[in-house]
């Protein structure tokens, strides 16, 4: 049993799951924004990273990890709400490339601001749980208390969001506002506020992912870049409309990347996302998990 758990196959699966769950989390945050406002948020990674810097930097000034985490997420939510109000709201009804371009500009601004404020920081963000891998027999399994914590947190957040959308009135209103804003308004749903809340929720989730990614790492502005691309691909392959699809695709991409890294070559690894995207979308251009809905003319 020990040797099986430590086999190359299982090692890759554990490693892939650890990244895959975080990818799924970010992909889900992209889907939330896409569903409510039909904007693909290219600055999502940078926004999460910005909020992470604001909150987690205080760890180095002696504040408790958990307080900093909470502060980061709240900052992220505020940043998301503000972004929707200031940058996105004026663009509703404009061509779809306008918000894309604006968010790309915002990505550039945020990365530059982060880099200019927090460059001196080269310390490792300490993890609240041990990152030492467990051993079975005399072999190492790529699972540590931190990995377990990470997977549990992601699972909790994912199910929390599923509950929010499926079971609560707030979630029902958010779904209705996304599906049919005008009818929702006629029923008294305050659509504008819900859009802002959608952005806040999404950026909060993205921030949580950024904190997880950065824990045990040097806090660097580029921490989210690679994983954001993977998450984007997961959201696209899952078919931007489907939260479940995004999660499944996110975990799968984590696994695929891990296997390409291990069995193929490190040179191809940067392209693995593109490969998954090409294959996934060649099979079904509208995403693997969206129901086929005829486009309205």
């Amino acid at each position, binding site marked *: 049993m020990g040797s099986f758990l430590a086999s190359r196959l299982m090692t890759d699966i554990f490693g892939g799951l650890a990244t895959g769950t975080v990818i799924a989390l970010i992909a889900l945050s992209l889907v939330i924004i896409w569903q409510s406002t039909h904007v693909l948020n290219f600055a999502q990674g940078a926004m999460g990273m910005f909020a992470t810097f604001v909150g987690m930097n205080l760890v180095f000034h002696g504040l408790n990890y958990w307080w900093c985490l909470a502060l980061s997420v709240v900052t992220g939510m505020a940043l998301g709400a503000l972004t929707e109000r200031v940058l996105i709201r004026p663009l509703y009804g404009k061509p779809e490339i306008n918000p894309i371009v604006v968010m790309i500009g915002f990505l550039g601004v945020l990365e530059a601001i982060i880099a200019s404020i927090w460059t001196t920081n080269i310390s490792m963000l300490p993890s609240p749980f041990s990152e030492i891998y467990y051993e079975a027999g005399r072999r190492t399994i790529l699972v540590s208390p931190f990995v377990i914590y990470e997977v549990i947190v992601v699972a909790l957040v994912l199910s929390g969001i599923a509950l929010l959308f499926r079971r609560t*009135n707030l979630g*029902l*209103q958010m*779904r*209705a506002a996304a*599906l*049919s804003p*005008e*009818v*929702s*308004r*006629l*029923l*008294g*749903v*305050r*659509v504008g506020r819900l859009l802002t809340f959608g952005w806040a929720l999404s950026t909060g989730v993205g921030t949580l992912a950024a904190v997880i990614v950065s824990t045990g790492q040097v806090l660097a502005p580029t921490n989210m870049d690679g994983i954001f691309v993977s998450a984007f691909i997961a959201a696209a392959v899952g078919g931007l409309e489907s939260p479940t699809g995004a999660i499944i695709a996110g975990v799968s991409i984590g696994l695929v990347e891990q296997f390409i890294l291990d069995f193929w070559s490190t040179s191809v690894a940067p392209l693995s996302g593109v490969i998954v995207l090409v294959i996934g979308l060649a099979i079904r251009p509208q995403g693997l998990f969206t129901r086929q809905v005829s486009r309205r003319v």
Partner: protein
Amino acid sequence: MIRVAGLSVTYGAVRALRDVSFEAPTGQITTVIGANGAGKTTLLRSISGLARAEGSIRLDERELLGMATEDVARLGVAHVPEGRGVIAELTVEENLRLGTLASKVPLAESLASQYAQFPALERRRRNYAATLSGGERQMLAMARALIARPSVLLLDEPSLGLAPQVTAETMRTIAQLCASESLTVILVEQNAKSALRIAHDAVVLHLGQVAAAGPSREIAADPELRRYYLGVAS
């Protein structure tokens, strides 16, 4: 009661409504009829704050013009839009739950009262609205509008796409609800004949202006007016 005075709506260079005035008294059905493009839908949309308009629209003494759509809805103005506005991707019950947001009546009680009124909906409450027939969708749209106990009901072409018997049934339901709940109903209809049959008053719109207004019996009897609301047919 709804009092519309001097209402004008322009879309770019097009004037959709010009100086429209009429009253829709409480407990009565006022029907708005006219040919395609006469401005009937625009009229309802401006009452709900979906179209930017000039003039005045009062609900009792309250000015509605300039209010956000959500706030108009929360004041008790229920609007069943063109095409019914049933959200196909939600279940029947989810659609109904959305309707209760504007009211203070407990959810279970509201649902029970609507299921009593429309038993067919209770049987299908867990089905997606997409699976409903045209008549059932009409029922759902009405139930969703009424569940918040509104004082005003705006209906945009409820008969559209329905079989004649279902249309007759729907019209009967509207008349009955108007009386029992003392609603102010504004009914926009292409099917002028059946609308005039149940309405107390009628407003005939022609090219965005009021061509005639008065008790529906008189409007129906006036052969001159028919060419307005029956279109080219006569």
